[in-house]
């Protein structure tokens, strides 16, 4: 699966797409592959505050529980509620339909520390080699 060029990425394999001051956050294809069959997703509700680098939700596969870390700080404006009944969307369309939350960014400058598409591709290539 191709990694979208316009996304920014974290070392924990989250992605964010920023439009004006709204960020859409998800997990990458690499992350869903590592997890395996995803069966459960727990997300914050609109109005909750996320802090950069802190866990804000949980994704569970048959085998494991994995926390999701926020790439930015901000207030949740929407959570993808369809994942509650169809968590498997995270396996089939992690960069699209299976976005997790939308946030109103507190400070756009936080995104400057994230990886670009090129940097992330190099990062996972290295991760796979280990």
């Amino acid at each position: 699966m191709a990694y979208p060029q316009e996304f920014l990425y974290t070392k924990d394999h989250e992605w964010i797409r920023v439009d004006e001051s709204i960020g859409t956050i998800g997990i990458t294809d690499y992350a869903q592959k590592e997890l395996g069959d995803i069966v459960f997703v727990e997300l914050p509700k609109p109005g909750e505050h996320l802090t950069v680098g802190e866990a804000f939700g949980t994704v569970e596969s048959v085998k494991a529980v994995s926390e999701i870390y926020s790439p930015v700080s901000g207030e949740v404006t929407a959570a993808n509620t369809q994942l509650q009944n169809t968590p498997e969307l995270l396996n089939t369309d992690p960069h699209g339909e299976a976005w997790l939350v939308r946030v109103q960014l507190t400070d756009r400058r936080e995104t400057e520390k994230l990886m670009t598409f090129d940097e992330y591709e190099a990062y996972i290539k290295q991760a796979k080699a280990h």
Partner: protein
Amino acid sequence: MSAQAGVELKRTALNAVHKAAGAKMVEFGGWEMPVEYAGITQEHLAVRTAAGLFDVSHMGEIEVSGSHALQFLQHITCNDASRLKDSQAQYSALMYPQGSAVDDCVVHRLAPDHYFICVNAANTDKDFDWMVRNNPFGADLHNVSGDYSQLAIQGPRAAEIVARVTSHNHSDLKYYWFRRARCCDVDGMLARTGYTGEDGFEFYFPPPESERVWNELLEAGKDHGLVPVGLGARNTLRLEAAYALYGHELDDETTLLEANLGWIVKLDKGDFLGRDVLAKQHQQGTRKKLAGFEMTERGIARDGYPAWIGGQAVGKVTSGSPAPFLKKNIGLAYLPPEQVEVGREIQIEIRGNLAAARIVPLPFYKRKKA
């Protein structure tokens, strides 16, 4: 659990085959093993509805022989090995004096003075040491783990597939019996045993032929829906069947009676390690009891999560997972014995929140006999 730095993981003879098939590899009991190929859910369902092939060569094998072999086994295991006939197998446990298990195992009788014991991979060295140190009878003990590959073929179509790679039809082999057999032109030991809750076989044979046997079995079963299955589905399958896993339901502090394994404890066979404690518990009751539960609220119980009853944390989940065939979230937990009652509402603490669950009868899954 991660491997200690600098310690090389052990590999089965099929390691490269698994990697080439795209399996996700993990550390398990000191071994590098496939956890999944196409996905745990798919693999689990294949075993329930068709068949699955497992590389379980990491399992340990110990031979006990000599004129004192039976006497030794009667002393160190809790089941009654004297009831075995040649070519018959028995689920049992190697015992500590405190009534807990060093390991659970399958004892196969090759001859009245010769037994073959299959033990857990991570415990093999510990088991063998314990046997050597508790052998005043002078039985001959050999850790022969390196001499065997072990494949498990499990599922309702397993017998049909095995029939295609053997000259003899082995569907007459009874549950927990075994025989010398030639599969895929390799001589080995074929047992009607398994760890999935389905019909199936386990085949023990010399490692050099592993790759060919694996490939020929997969080829023979292709039209029957046979797929390779990793340790991930092996765990969810055994949990649905409510089989104990050492390190989870069993450890050096939990007695066999607490683990619902009273059926393999033969108090009337004579003295054995741990008998006193077990006889006392049999009379006076146990400190805890293993119970099965299913979640009735959203949430997945996981190993180690606290179990609550009546506003108090009273126990701990030993195995918890989604059950792919039952399509429920299930688990096993140790609870106060007086609280273990089918239908009782309990709660599981999931990352700080309590979610409702209910005690259900075990096993969670029982196959319909053909």
